[in-house]
């Protein structure tokens, strides 16, 4: 698919979410079950993206520690302790590079 078209479609769906209540739904109350499920959406999708990108290499599930796994575990600990996204990225990248360097020796 053309990238511009793809981005427009993502933008339109996102705009629909932003305008949902502000413009279209007003006072309508979401069914409780839907509201409940909604709360878990961001966390579940982000973890679903993270786990294969860290635990899989070359289409296989990693069975030994790789720089990505070590850095990923470190990043989870940093994120948990600091709750700071920038610290998580910086710390994770540093450990990732450090491990790559150590593994290459």
């Amino acid at each position: 698919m053309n990238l511009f078209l793809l981005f427009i479609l993502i933008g339109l769906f996102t705009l629909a979410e932003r305008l949902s209540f502000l413009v279209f739904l007003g006072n309508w109350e979401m069914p409780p079950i839907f509201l409940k499920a909604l709360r878990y959406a961001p966390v579940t999708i982000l973890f679903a993206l993270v786990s294969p990108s860290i635990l899989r290499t070359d289409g296989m599930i990693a069975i030994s520690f790789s720089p990505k796994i070590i850095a990923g575990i470190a990043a989870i600990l940093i994120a948990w302790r600091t709750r700071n996204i920038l610290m998580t990225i910086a710390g994770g990248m540093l450990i990732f590079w450090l491990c790559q360097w150590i593994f290459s020796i």
Partner: protein
Amino acid sequence: METFKTKQEAFITGIRHFAPIVPGVIPFGLVYGVAATAVGITPLQGIFMSIVVLAGAAQLVAIELLGSGAAAWIIILSATMVNLRFLIYSASLTPYLKPYSLWWRIGLGYFITDQPYALSIAYFTEHPDAPHKQWYQLGHSLMLWFWWIVACAMGLFLGDFIPAEWGLTFAIPLMFIGIAVPAIKNRTFLVAAVVSAIVALFAAPLPNNFGLIIAVACGMTVGVLIGDDEE
């Protein structure tokens, strides 16, 4: 916090309130720009995406999925799911912005993202009767828009000069970790997250990244089934 006497004052206050947040926006834009370049997105396409989507996490999710060759509908669905929180933002801003015209609500709605929402809802809950609320929100929303586009553009142009060996695309999953881990509010969130991660890991070979959708469906279902008290 004081309330505003004029709309100019409200607008300027909005801009001022956003100033401390600017240093936090710029690195995200840089990461986005560099990662987008790495999967072959041109600066023009990247800036276009930042304008029409205007949501960092969703943009990065789409980039990550584009890089792994996911089907278009999976990319659209995933980005939309990451942005589901905007439904909640939209709903909670509605009582305060309802008095304003349709065009104001559409205009301000376009800018709804995490930081502007946080500023507005904090101010509106404290001053429910303040006048010129729309101008306050427009002030900080425009700040976010401006700095987000500038940072993304910088990253998109810098991206060409950063060697692929640095592995900077690994910053994307790290950023997801940085966003997702603090969002785990209790044990139910943790279980939902772990279920989703495990299913995603084993379902990853499915074509078009369909495993992602299955994983999220499993995680959300488990979350709803267990339930938690923070309703």
